[in-house]
């Protein structure tokens, strides 16, 4: 049985949905945030935000917008994990904690095996890992590990790009021995048949770093083939971003205040909206693990959709199922780069995010556009 509580006291699901609708309909600028949901859940949430003329944001927007900002302000080469697995002869992993961002990465990319497609099939794969964390240093047998802190990674990538292009670097920072190693690596990159960078913005890389990496990929593609696999953000971020894209034309951090979508990553950042007092009610969706919102203000009406046990002390809480765990869920699959239906692993009758939001929506009267 699904549970709902209001300030810790149990209420019926029906009443909870009505109360949620009342709160959100009464707000001047409600926020639909977290968006930790499967694609149907994210889709329903965006429709609700539109009807309410509020704004929506995802809890992993920072990470997804890192990649998207590079794509939309520079350009991007990407491929699927499958293609990297089957074809990449040089794989460059960038950043710490990739195996945490994507626990299946090592198996999926089969980095210990030779590529199977292309004229170079069967030749051993070269794996380079720039800046893994301590636990990852020995994770791949035969990999070349290049230690680097998160702060150093952008500079290392810059030096690689300079040397791939045959341009000088600062001799005070890069001594002769180091330069020789970099030049060796630059040769490896240039001689790759189908090279592939693998990165996760969530590991702490920012847009400038990813742009440098993609610029290097662009340079390499002048003479050979190179591309990238990016590891998507947590809590269904990639799938929800796709839904936001086809529904509104924009990724999360989009508002409907004027009756049409406006995308502004600064204005519609959830925590800022709440902390500045611009949002006057919030629906927080966190169906995967009940992660709590990051804002500090606690005086606006809050509705939380989260799994059992993740009820906050205050506000309205509606228990929802976990996508792909308690119910079948459509999610962006990191291993394929596409949407897929994940069957439930521990089915329960907890409602899905989409079901709860549809029920809330049914209690929201159509807001007349002005």
């Amino acid at each position, binding site marked *: 049985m699904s549970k709902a509580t209001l300030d810790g006291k149990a209420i019926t699901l029906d009443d909870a949905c009505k109360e949620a609708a009342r709160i959100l309909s009464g707000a001047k600028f409600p926020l639909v945030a977290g968006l930790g949901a499967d694609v149907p859940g994210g889709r329903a949430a965006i429709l609700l935000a539109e009807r309410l*003329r509020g704004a929506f944001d995802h809890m992993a927007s920072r990470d997804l917008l890192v990649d998207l900002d590079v794509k939309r302000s520079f350009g991007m080469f990407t491929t699927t994990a499958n293609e990297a697995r089957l074809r990449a002869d040089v794989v460059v992993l960038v950043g710490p904690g990739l195996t945490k961002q994507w626990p299946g990465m090592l198996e999926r990319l089969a980095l210990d095996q030779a590529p199977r497609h292309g004229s170079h099939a069967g030749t051993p794969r070269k794996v380079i890992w720039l800046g893994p964390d301590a636990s990852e240093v020995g994770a791949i047998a035969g990999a070349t590990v290049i230690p680097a802190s998160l702060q150093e990674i952008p500079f290392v990538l810059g030096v690689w790009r300079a040397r791939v292009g045959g341009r*000088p670097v600062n001799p005070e920072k890069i001594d002769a021995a180091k330069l020789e190693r970099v030049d060796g690596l630059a040769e490896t990159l240039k001689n790759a048949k189908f090279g592939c960078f693998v990165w996760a913005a969530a590991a702490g890389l920012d847009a400038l770093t990813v742009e440098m990496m993609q610029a290097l990929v662009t340079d390499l593609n002048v003479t050979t083939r190179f591309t990238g696999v990016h590891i998507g953000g947590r809590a269904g971020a990639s799938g929800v971003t796709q839904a936001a894209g086809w529904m509104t034309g924009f990724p999360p951090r989009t508002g409907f*205040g004027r009756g049409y979508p406006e995308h502004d990553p*600064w204005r519609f950042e959830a925590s800022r909206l709440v902390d500045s007092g611009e949002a006057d009610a919030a629906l927080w969706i966190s169906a995967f693990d009940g992660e709590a919102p990051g804002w500090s203000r606690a005086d606006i009406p809050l509705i939380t959709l989260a799994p059992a046990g993740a009820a906050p002390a205050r506000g309205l809480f509606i228990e929802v199922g976990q996508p792909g765990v308690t119910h079948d869920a459509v999610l962006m699959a990191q291993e394929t780069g596409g949407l897929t239906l994940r069957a439930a692993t521990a089915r329960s009758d907890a409602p899905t995010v989409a079901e709860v939001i549809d029920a809330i929506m049914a209690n929201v009267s159509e807001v007349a556009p002005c």
Partner: protein
Amino acid sequence: MKPFTFTLRQEPPQRVDLSALTPDRLAGKSLAEIEKIEIGATRASTKVGDVFQLAEGDLKNVRYEGGSARFDLVGAKLLPEFSIHVEGDVGLQVGRLAKGGKITISGSAGAYAASGNEGAHIEIKGNVGEMLAAPLAGELAGMSGGRVVVRGKAGARAGDRLRRGILIIEGDAGDDLGSRLIAGTIVALGATSGRVGYLNKRGSLVLAKRPEIGSTYVDCGAHAFTFARLFSRALKADSEAAAAVLSGKLQRYGGDTAVYGKGEILTPV
């Protein structure tokens, strides 16, 4: 003649879009019509008259008595010959895509100040938020002309993708000053931090305090630059201190060699 004046009644309950209140767009409108202009951006209406008391005056010059960090897009698409003064703070994107004219802010400005500025002279006496003069999401170039003078501090990534024009930051600059410069000139008098001039194509960063020089900037020696003398003269009226930095010999670091190696960081010898 006195400027056309908007006097703040009270802090608006939401962010307001003031792009409609530039001199050219107000021309020909009566006070009553102006009071009815919608400036809110949510379903709760906010009109000019709700936020401001109006006093008629010379429409070439608009003055705000009282500002707010919620005043977005002040002076957006401003045209040459016009001016706007705000006695107080402003929010996002002041001077966005301004073609010319003069904007002065006595207080501080929010993020994306002077975004896409094409020719306005913008002076901010206080601090500015991040992404000064930067492009908005998806755009490929930031400010393309004009001059911006910040007396206080600037936030992160000031001058991102600057294409043309001059930024003068008298206070400290946030992280990653001059990221992705296409061209143009930034003069920063205070401290800098982070990856200064990262992915710089052909821009010039003139820094009064020598930063940590990155791995892809290469020392080209100390030189007397004629262009610096030219700039020194031209910037004197806006910033004596900036002019002073430019007047002497400068150490040149060529970079970002990750890109073309055709931009530079210049610092006093």
